[in-house]
């Protein structure tokens, strides 16, 4: 199997416009989730994690992005541009492939003008816009697998690098805040009235966020900066085959995915030093995850959910949270679970409740979503 390295990355969310800024805010235990009373989002007040509009406008100006692009497209362009600045990779090379992860794309355009159906609503069109902007010659891949999309995109990036077609994969993901998504989760009574509290015994639902993230993978070691030596070594996708909108009661689907990732990575469970869970803070999801980690013999591994910091960013979540994991590896520090106080799942999960400095070499990132889908990916540090 070819080695797959992370060349560079970027995060855009309520906590900043680059990974460093966001990571520093996490270490300071700052959450970007705030109660919002803007009626364009919801008829009632709802806590949201939103990208700062003034800073966003400034970033657009800096990157010289004109108004023909939608908000999501601008976010993806800024995110990729920032990531590529730190990398030696040629985006216009036929050896470079773009993978776009999104659940709802430009859904904010829907209903704005009922007479005209905008091509920009189609996800392949969004991906083509990004591909053309960066003058890449390859047909981009769009992954739209609900909340696991970001992790699936990384797993697929690793897989495509095993073929000889590509040398570099640009994985970008994003979703923006819309009344569409908020009303949907509200209709499920799944949104917490406060900042969400993953794995806590008082957890009562998710917090939604918007964001974008980019991870650039390469199989060519010459495309790496001196410091970047984190590899993607295994990943898998699975289904619960249980319910379209409710997680499995047993956690076996997520467990399958973790087991296969570990097998592919050729490591043992005990090699995993840290887990970045999905941890949406809904009662059933977190319970399911705890059961899956128990089945996988991973209960003792320090585990967090980052949803309390920047909410659930849907198609960006798996990418943004993986990037945080990668930087935890680089800095040997594990981020705490914002909002967590008392364990509220039936398994004795080791939830991280304070910033923890400790040498870590291998991490697991998991995600689960509507449609019963689960995904996991393993990163390791080359020592």
């Amino acid at each position: 199997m070819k080695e797959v390295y992370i060349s560079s990355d970027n995060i855009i969310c309520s906590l900043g416009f680059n990974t460093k800024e966001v990571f520093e805010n996490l270490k300071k235990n700052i959450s970007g989730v705030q109660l919002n009373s803007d009626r364009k989002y919801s008829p009632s007040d709802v806590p949201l994690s939103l990208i700062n509009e003034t800073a966003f406008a400034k970033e657009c100006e800096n990157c010289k992005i004109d108004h023909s692009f939608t908000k999501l497209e601008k976010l993806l362009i800024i995110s990729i541009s920032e990531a590529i600045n730190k990398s030696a990779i040629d985006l216009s090379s036929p050896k470079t492939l773009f993978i776009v992860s999104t659940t709802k794309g430009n859904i904010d355009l829907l209903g704005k003008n009922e007479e005209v159906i905008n091509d920009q609503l189609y996800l392949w069109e969004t991906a083509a816009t990004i591909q053309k902007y960066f003058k890449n010659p390859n047909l981009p891949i769009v992954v739209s697998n609900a909340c696991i999309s970001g992790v699936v995109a990384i797993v697929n990036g690793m897989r495509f690098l095993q073929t000889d077609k590509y040398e570099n994969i640009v994985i970008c993901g994003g979703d923006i805040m819309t009344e569409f998504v908020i009303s949907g989760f509200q209709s499920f009574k799944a949104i917490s009235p406060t900042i969400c509290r993953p794995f806590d015994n008082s957890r009562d639902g998710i917090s939604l966020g918007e964001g974008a993230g980019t991870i650039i993978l390469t199989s060519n070691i010459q495309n790496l900066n001196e410091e970047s030596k984190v590899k993607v070594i295994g990943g898998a996708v699975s289904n619960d085959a249980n319910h379209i909108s409710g997680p499995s009661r047993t956690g076996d689907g997520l467990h399958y995915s973790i087991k296969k990732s570990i097998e592919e990575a050729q490591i043992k469970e005990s090699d995993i030093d840290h887990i970045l869970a999905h941890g949406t803070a809904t009662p059933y999801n977190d319970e399911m995850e705890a059961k899956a980690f128990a089945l996988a013999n991973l209960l003792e591994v320090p585990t967090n959910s980052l949803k309390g910091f920047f909410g659930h960013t849907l198609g960006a979540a798996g990418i943004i949270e993986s990037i945080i994991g990668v930087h935890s590896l680089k800095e040997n520090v594990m981020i705490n679970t914002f909002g967590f106080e008392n364990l509220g799942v039936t398994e004795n999960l080791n939830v991280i409740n304070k910033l923890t400095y400790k040498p870590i070499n291998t991490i697991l990132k998991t995600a689960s979503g509507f449609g019963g889908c689960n995904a996991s990916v393993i990163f390791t540090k080359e020592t």
Partner: protein
Amino acid sequence: MILTEISKYCIIRKNTLVLNGVELLSDETNLPFSDFIKTIYKSQEINYPKFFKMDSLSKLAFVASEILLKNTAISENYNTDEIGVIIENRASSLSTDLKYQKSFEDKTNYFPNPSLFVYTLPNIMIGEICIKNNFKGENGLFVFEKFDPQFIEDYVSMLFKIGRINACITGWVDFDDLAKEEPIFEAALFLIEKQRNNEVSANSIIFDNQNLNNIYFNKK
């Protein structure tokens, strides 16, 4: 090298249902989609009450998968976690997205419906197929402008190669009624399996992009 074959295929398009090249149903009355899909459901003796709760995209994918898997021993021959479902589509879930949009747009008639909202994700159709058949293996929903047989060959072959799957339901399922009065819909699902004893038999169809393409465009 792993030899894989297209062991079955099912195509549903406007007014027609084809299984392994044989037309099972031809509708000359030009039924609207909702009636046409119900006609297939009944004529193929499918009995699954959850079908009636699905959105159009899931109904289309589900019915095609049922016809594809009928009289096969997939669940007996393979472990539940070694069966994959990998689907491509064009319009993701936009048809249901538009219906859902209308449920909250009008504030005098504000009623976002959770059972509609869940179908605003295109991978739900994969979930429906997995739930019905207890498939727990690899899932993937990829959006392309048009049917991309090369991607299917590359991706599904890779999953076989790394030993992640031993059987796969794959293909194209699309439903789009945004632009036109009449929906554009199409399902082309293929069952991919390893060849018996890893040998090419005389009547097997090798799983590659050329054969996927020929079947999709109905070329001999």
